[in-house]
């Protein structure tokens, strides 16, 4: 393996409908925040990794040009990573490899999205080719509903139980979000409100779905030498994993979801993790849909297949549970797509360095961050440790 890689700081913006700033100004908020939080000078960075979800979301293509100045990238090498919804984690992974390769000692990694400037589902539809799948896939909710049905059917989980567990997940996360200063949707929900909410794509209802958020996240990745020199509280990258499967939605099984299993396995192997539920202290799972979060618990080995609903209802994955998942409120409450995965990494880094404030999981030393993308196709995982 390559040289040790540290995360020495992060900066997130306030999320929501951010029509108080233009897109580059929003990115600037996150970049300025990471330099302010760390006291590092932008001149000292060796390179920049930038990314958003599809450029067409905001109607500006190849946004690294547009953001060149706010990314502090003028006169510096840049990489522009984009892997659909998993962009955020792919950005962090790019930062990791850049440092691990020995070609840089300090790299700025920035993800952003201004979803309210475009039409997210119309954009998502353009991910799907126009001669076959586009007719049938109703944006992201359509894909995830089908996956949920496949999963609950495969393991014979009663629809009512899935509903009950999903309701628990969304109530918990919207409540958790109150403690995260960057979260977008913060709300005290009741089971009735959730269960009777408008159907988006059956069985998914309004509160099962993440919002459209505007926001950005910036992080600094450093070599061991640089991290020591800086003397900042650092999270260390212990493992990275990423995997993707066929483009055609019907080609691979989505219940026992191989690319999710593989991504986690790669990261665990690298980090030497044998029993994730025991060894991990916190997980920031990419959960744009309640149902999918539970499916991930199973694919990531937090529990056996078919078991997640029961464990959710027992509180195993809640803030006070055995393995707290998404104490930040997760993607379900805050979703600026191109930044979302990076937010997960930033949150995991805050947790393992004890800097998560009101939503700190006490004593967290090992955390998982994750993002998903494509037509239910890509999963990326990063494991961060306090040493």
């Amino acid at each position, binding site marked *: 393996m390559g040289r040790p890689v540290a995360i020495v700081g992060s900066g997130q913006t306030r999320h929501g409908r951010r*029509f*108080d700033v233009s897109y580059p100004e929003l990115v600037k908020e996150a970049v300025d925040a990471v330099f302010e939080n760390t006291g590092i000078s932008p001149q000292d960075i060796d390179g920049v990794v930038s990314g958003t979800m599809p450029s*067409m979301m905001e*109607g500006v293509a190849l946004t690294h040009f547009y953001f060149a100045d706010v990314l502090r990238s003028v006169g510096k090498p840049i990489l522009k990573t984009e892997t659909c919804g998993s962009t955020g984690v792919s950005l962090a992974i790019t930062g990791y490899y850049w440092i691990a390769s020995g070609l840089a000692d300090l790299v700025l990694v920035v993800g952003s999205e201004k979803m309210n400037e475009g*039409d997210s*589902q*119309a954009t998502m*539809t353009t991910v799907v*080719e*126009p*001669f*076959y*799948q*586009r*007719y*049938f*896939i*109703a*944006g992201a*909710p*359509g894909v995830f*509903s*089908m*996956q949920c*049905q*496949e999963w609950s*059917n495969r393991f014979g989980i009663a629809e009512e139980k899935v509903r009950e567990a999903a309701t628990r997940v969304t109530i918990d996360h919207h409540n958790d979000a109150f403690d995260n200063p960057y979260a977008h949707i913060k709300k005290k929900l009741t089971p009735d409100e959730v269960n009777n909410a*408008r*159907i*988006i*794509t*059956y069985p*998914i209802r309004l509160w099962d779905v993440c919002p459209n958020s505007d926001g950005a996240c910036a992080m600094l990745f450093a070599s061991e030498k640089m991290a020591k020199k800086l003397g900042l509280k650092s999270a260390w990258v212990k493992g990275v994993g990423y995997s993707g499967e*066929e*483009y*055609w*939605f*019907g*080609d*691979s099984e*989505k219940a026992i979801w191989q690319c999710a299993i593989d991504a986690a396995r790669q990261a665990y192997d690298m980090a030497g993790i044998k029993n994730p539920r025991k060894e991990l202290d916190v997980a920031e799972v990419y959960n744009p849909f309640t149902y999918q979060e539970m499916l991930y618990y199973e694919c990531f080995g937090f529990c056996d297949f078919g078991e997640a609903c029961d464990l959710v209802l027992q509180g195993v994955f809640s803030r006070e549970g055995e393995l707290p998942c998404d104490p930040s409120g997760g993607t379900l409450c805050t979703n600026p797509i191109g930044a979302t995965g990076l937010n997960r990494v930033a949150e995991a880094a805050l947790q393992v360095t004890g800097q998560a404030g009101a939503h700190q999981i006490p004593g967290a030393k090992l955390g998982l961050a994750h993002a998903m993308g494509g037509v239910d196709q890509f999963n990326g995982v990063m494991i961060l440790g306090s040493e």
Partner: protein
Amino acid sequence: MEKRAEYDVITDEVAIPYEIAYGPTWTRFFEGLKNEKIYGSKCAKCNRVLVPARSYCPRCFVEIKNFIEVAQEGTVISWVLTEYEYFGMPTKPPFIGALIKLDGTDVNFLHLIGGFDLSDPEHVRKTVKNGMKVKALWNDEKKGTIMDIKYFTPVK
């Protein structure tokens, strides 16, 4: 400078024209639909029957040259009732998108389920079950597109 919650907003709509080449395999597949045939292909290495027809196996990474007519009946693996609409949506809600394992094939075919009233989700939930048998219903007029199959409908 005074801070406001919102400032000027420019509204715009972009329309970018592209032209996509089907190539030989999709051309043949859509010609099949015109003749009420659904073509798949069999990978010589893993022996899976893939549908729609393919020019290569994504897993074995070998070329595929055959076309096999596959069954027009199959089993519902998963389904979703879509109730919302967004800009430029090609199929108007409500509709049921579904993964269907056509008999004798090894992957799921994506299409619609229909032929009954979709206005009431409760009724839909009682009508459509995972594991149920469905069969293709064809449009009278065929254009050589995926929508030549109107939808898959429950087999009585």
